[in-house]
């Protein structure tokens, strides 16, 4: 098959030879390889361009201090591979069990070299089509009505070789360092090149610009040998455990916070770097001043002529001169290679380092161009995990599924179940699904109800940003209402500077589930698919518009939502009331009784017992059900009939009342999280 495609893929356009592929992927990093994997499995014609000689070139350099801060959990006490991916932040998705990161490293925070090694294996074991040593330096469009998207993408590499593709998947990552220009910025060393040998910093005073993980990682490395480190950035430090956002400062890197707060000379400062200026004195020491003082003054005139803040305010904080200033300001997307016609625009505000994309990960400027991987993080920046391997491995799969439907008529994969499996299918997913868990509030499972609510169709991990386009994007019909299952943190619970350890932060009772704070499943019910307009007008901070009904499964300390009374029962009641039916399970004996006394049967009896698949139940279970008053014992009935015959129902209810003592949760155990 591959050969046939190749034979026809050489074509000649206006004199230049183009190598054609349906899909071109730029970048053989984690996202590029992940996309390649899905394209390969689907048997699509694709190629991945990688400028380096091996995959994951970013990881070959970064992080400089080589410690990944994505967790590699070896043990979870469970063998469920899907569940375990919740705590494996490095593996890519594949069917090959060898390609799990825990087989590559035993470190909880693995070394970056391991990642490079892993990516190499991923590409080679799965035989992905990667063309190495190919740096795409220009991308432009060629209009063509025959093309999938009305145009082809023309790619040019460093050797002026041209490629032509119908769909372009940009997984080039974010590798252009963020640079701030201010007077004296030439004295600043970049994170990319700064020495990582602590000895080089012995006895030095260091100023670090930036307040992200790279800044703290750099500080951490030299903390023990410097005189002191000051760290300056515009915003206050955001701790990931307070914001539940993995891109914020991780606890593993926060050694400097410790020394700052324990008065060990190190310190944090807030200020706009744009206002900064650095002057070097004769001894080579770097002094901080303000651009404000330098206006109309030539910096080269010498330090003596320049006003320093401490000249006016003798206790100015950064009056001590520094030996080194290091810039750790992160990265931005490389916009330079795209022709203007592609309209690759940077986002606005705090997402200006990312290209503008839709919630479907398609570029806002060009149809058929999708951004994958860390550069696609504008969709959920500072919210979810879409900028990280453990997030974008799922969004990449979602994009692949969208493309399969759009270009190959392969509808979004789904499974049809009888309605009796509704509660179960949700419970199963919220307990094990990793995509829902990692990409909380971004990817959602969708349940499309079939007519009469006798069956439903289950779609996994659909991007909720494009919920309104569901029918068009998935090829599935949502005529009879739908459930959307997502995971959410409590609104207003976490965030920078919030106390996330306050007492009673955890909710224990199902009836207060909507006030749950930690990640918990939320189910939205819509009678009709929300429209584009409704999506646009949704309440701020809401992932979805107002539903017709909503259900929160109460947060759980163990993230195990299988408790019969606290989790499953309220969920069942919610589903029953949305569908206006009775979703209880019944033993065959009950179905038998119903069959003789009712013209209609509950779904469980209809779809089980009536099809000769009733649940007989063992003697012990029967006994328990009798004791619970949920089944009646007729074996010892004295049928002489001195009781009013009509009271059958009543007595059963009576039994229920007597025996079904409400299971009051043990308050102190349920709320153990508070202590």
């Amino acid at each position: 098959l591959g050969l046939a495609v190749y034979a026809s893929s050489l074509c000649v356009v206006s004199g230049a030879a183009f190598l054609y592929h349906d899909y071109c992927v730029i970048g053989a990093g984690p996202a590029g390889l992940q996309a390649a994997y899905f394209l390969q499995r689907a048997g699509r014609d694709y190629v991945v361009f990688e400028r380096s000689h091996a995959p994951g070139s970013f990881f070959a350099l970064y992080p400089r201090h080589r410690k990944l801060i994505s967790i590699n959990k070896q043990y979870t006490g469970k063998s469920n591979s899907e569940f375990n991916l919740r705590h494996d932040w490095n593996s890519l998705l594949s069917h090959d069990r060898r390609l799990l990161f825990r087989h590559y490293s035993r470190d909880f925070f693995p070394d970056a070299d391991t990642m490079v090694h892993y990516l190499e294996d991923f590409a080679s074991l799965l035989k992905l089509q990667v063309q190495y040593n190919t740096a795409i330096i220009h991308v432009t469009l060629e209009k063509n009505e025959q093309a999938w998207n009305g145009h082809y993408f023309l790619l040019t590499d460093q050797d002026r070789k041209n490629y032509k593709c119908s769909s372009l998947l940009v997984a080039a990552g974010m590798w252009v360092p963020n640079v701030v220009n201010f007077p004296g910025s030439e004295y600043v060393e970049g994170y990319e090149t700064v020495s990582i040998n602590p000895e080089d910093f012995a006895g030095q005073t260091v100023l670090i610009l930036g307040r992200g993980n790279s800044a703290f990682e750099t500080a951490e490395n030299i903390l023990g040998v410097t005189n002191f480190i000051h760290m300056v950035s515009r915003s206050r430090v955001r701790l990931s455990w307070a914001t539940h956002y993995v891109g914020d400062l991780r606890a593993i890197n926060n050694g400097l916070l410790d020394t700052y707060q324990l008065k060990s000379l190190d310190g944090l400062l807030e200020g706009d770097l744009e206002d900064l200026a650095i002057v070097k004195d004769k001894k080579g020491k770097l002094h901080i001043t303000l651009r404000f003082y330098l206006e109309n003054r030539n910096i080269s005139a010498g330090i003596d002529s320049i006003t320093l803040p401490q000249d006016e305010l003798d206790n100015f904080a950064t009056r001590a001169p520094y030996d080194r200033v290091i810039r750790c300001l992160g990265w931005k997307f490389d916009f330079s290679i795209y022709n203007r016609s592609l309209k690759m625009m940077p986002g606005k505000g705090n997402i200006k380092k990312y290209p503008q994309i839709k919630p479907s990960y398609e570029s806002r400027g060009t149809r058929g161009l999708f951004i994958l991987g860390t550069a696609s993080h504008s969709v959920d920046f500072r919210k979810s995990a879409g900028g990280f391997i453990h997030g974008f491995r799922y969004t990449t799969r979602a994009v692949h599924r969208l493309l399969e439907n759009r270009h190959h008529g392969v509808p979004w994969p789904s499974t049809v179940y009888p309605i009796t499996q509704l509660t179960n299918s949700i419970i199963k997913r919220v307990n094990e699904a990793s995509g829902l868990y990692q990409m909380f509030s971004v990817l959602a499972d969708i349940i499309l109800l079939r007519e009469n609510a006798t069956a439903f169709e289950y779609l996994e991990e659909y991007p909720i940003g494009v919920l309104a386009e569901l029918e068009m994007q998935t090829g599935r019909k949502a005529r009879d209402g739908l459930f959307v299952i997502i995971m959410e943190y409590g609104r207003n619970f976490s965030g920078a500077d919030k106390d996330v350890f306050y007492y009673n932060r955890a909710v224990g009772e199902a009836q207060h589930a909507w006030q749950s704070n930690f990640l918990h499943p939320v189910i939205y019910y819509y009678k009709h698919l929300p429209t584009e307009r409704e999506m646009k007008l949704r309440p701020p901070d809401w992932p979805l518009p107002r539903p017709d009904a909503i259900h929160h499964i109460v947060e759980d300390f163990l993230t195990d939502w299988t408790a019969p009374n606290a989790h499953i029962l309220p969920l069942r009641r919610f589903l029953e009331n949305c569908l206006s039916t009775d979703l209880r399970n019944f033993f065959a004996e009950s179905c038998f009784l119903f069959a003789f006394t009712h013209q209609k049967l509950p779904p469980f009896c209809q779809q089980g017992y009536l099809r000769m698949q009733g649940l007989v139940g063992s003697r012990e279970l029967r006994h328990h059900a009798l004791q619970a008053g949920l089944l009646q014992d007729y074996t010892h009935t004295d049928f002489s009939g001195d009781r009013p015959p009509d009271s059958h129902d009543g007595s059963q209810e009576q039994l229920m009342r007597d025996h079904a003592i409400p299971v009051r949760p043990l308050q102190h155990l349920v709320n153990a999280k508070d202590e």
Partner: protein
Amino acid sequence: MSTQKGRWDSSLVFLLFCASSIPRSGSVGLQQELSPQHYFSGLEAGKASLAFFTPTVSPGAQPFLEQIESSAEALQDYGISVVKVNCPKEDVSRYCGKENALRKAFLFRGNRLIREFPTDALFDVNSIIANVLFALLFNEVKYVETLADLENIENVLKGKSSMVFAYVPATGTAEHRAVMEAAFVYGTTHQFVLTTEAALLKATSHDDPEVSSAWLLFCHCQQVTDPAQPCRRTALGQPLTLLNIHRHLKLMGAPLVTEVAEDPEKVSTVHLQLGLPLVFILSQKETYEADRRTAEFVAWQLLGKAGVALLSRDLVDLNVLHRSNVALKTPEEGMPIQYLVLEDTDEVITLVEDKNKLKQMQEDEQQEEEEEEDEDEKENNNQDIQDDQVLEAVSRDKKRELPLEQVLVLTEENFHSSLSEAARTVVLFYASWEAVSLAVLRSYSEVAAHLKGTPGVLLCRVNCWDWPGLCSQENVTQFPTLRIYKEGQQSVTFHGMWGTEELSSFILLSRVSCPLKLATMEEAEGYLRGEFPSELSSHHHTSLLGVFSAATSEARKAFEEAGNILSGHVRMGMYFEDDALALSQKYSVSPPALLLAWSGGRSVEGIALSKHSVQDVVQMIRYELLEAFPEITVPNLPQYLQLRKPFLILFSAGGLSQMESKEMLKLAKGRAQQAFVVCWLNLKKTPVGHGILRKYFSTTPSLPVLLWVNLHAGGQVFKFPSPEQSITEVNILSWLEKLQAGLEIPSSTLSEEDWKPPLPAYDFLQMMEPSLPELSPHPGDTSVPPPPKNAGGDRATREEPSQESPAGEVGSPGRDLRGTAPRLAARDKQGKRHSEL
């Protein structure tokens, strides 16, 4: 309860009607008079009126006037008009002139002043009515202060009339009003005596009474003939309300013992009307005098609690035991009269008192229930109580360790290698958190115990919660799923009842291939006899043998395919040797044909196989395997339901008598066979059948009972008139004809109700709304105020930590230099903070 109340209400209306028979002056409650002159000139002789005088200048200045005004209507019921007289400014007459007269109300009868009331005696409607009636009924209601006074009155009344003695803690109370209102009606019949002295209360009641609660005694002085004898007293055991007093006096007024000479069913006395039971003392001519005394004795004991009637059996033809001496009729409609044989009068009294107690309890319970329901409604019912029988049963059983030693646990690692270990591997796919799975796992463990030692069968299980990859790879989308893997063959999935027996039988039957190819005539014959193959010889299954000639390969293929589908559920054999024709002809069919050997009698039935599509063959086999007159059980009902025909079903207390089964079988095999299912149910074996009968009948039918149940159309249930008619084919058929002609009345109709959610869900949307106004149905409305920080009331502790906006985030990134430079330069105080540079 409600009907009783209704009855009392109507008596009360009657009472009030009597009271207001005095002509009314008008429909308006309060009259207005322009001046005292007008008022006095208009007074009618003998008519009472309550007047108050008010200066025109300050209308309605006094709050007590409001109370008088609101009691006007009630007073009018007693023929007392309430008049507001305006005092002209210049008037200085007796009522208008004096300042203090304006603070009083005056009661006139005609134009004679009876009483003047200071306004503090008229503080509310109760006190106004009580005091006004008290004043008017001066003669009818005697006020006493000492025991001696009371005794004097009692002595005077003996032999003449009865006395109603009431103690109220104070005048002007609601109880006082009730007594006065009762006196207004009964004052001419009985002498009313009132006191507010606690000492009198103590002297008249037996146990230690509560001084603060009112108390009423009926003293039966009228019947007293000997002045030395005290009057019998009957206390009112209920709170003093007009209704209760009225009821009590009615009961006291009723004859002590009613003599009746008609069918007790038709008898109605005031007691029954007032919701009390009626006790009949069954009398005979010979014992009449003694019975009469007994009745009177009992009547005194039960006074106020029940009525007593004396019924002479000689006059009424009673169809009851001769020994019966007492009958009890309860006020509930439709309740049959109880005839009893009692030893002594105490038993009668206990009987009634217990009945009343029970009734009281029931009423209390009902009330409680109602209250509970109210509460429940507030708390959204018992939403948090498990009402799923399977889930609850499994949760209650979760601590028991299952004997699963015989069942191999499979994992992703050992799944494929295990499949090759035994000839047949049975795998139960389940999820360890899912109730139905766990219920099946329990049966499965029993299967494992059953089949222990069966060669060639390996029982295994896969927990899909542990191994989701394996389960999806094996295409298991629902739990539980049971599959039998055979080396080199397609696996067979179980589609039967999840019971131990059914599972065991499935596994055992699956040991031989389906259909089993029989090589020789001997094998075929042995197969039909149930002796071949030996693995299955100990199992009683109906055997099915397909017989094919060489020319019928198409039918054979379909049969083989059907075998795959029915594998494990039906015992199927196949014979297509050269002498197939000979075999089939033995059973008078020609190939392709099915030979059916019934498990019980081993009679062989030959059926021509005319269908050639797999589905049709499967359908046909299933149909042919149905019995003509089956015993319906829980596991087999669905097979017969699938025929979608009405059921003619005989409910039997145990096994059927020969006669019954013979007649029914005749019926089943007769012409009716096509139109309905003839079957029976053994209540001993299928006790849930009792539940069915209870649902159908309001009175217990005698067994056996034959029913026609229209399960699929209309849901009517008809009962064959046994034992009047015996269950014979002829009788049944003629009954069915009548039934079909619409000449029979259904005993019951199956509920048509849909299966709605048993209880409501938590309405989180509604709970969220108050704290999240952005959730309002009109998003995008910018006028919506920001959400309050504190959500639910009881969760005050959840209040967020105080939140000053982080300084670093206030300014926009593009903040201008002039704003930031001084801050960076720390010129202001803020800058002195180290962290602010």
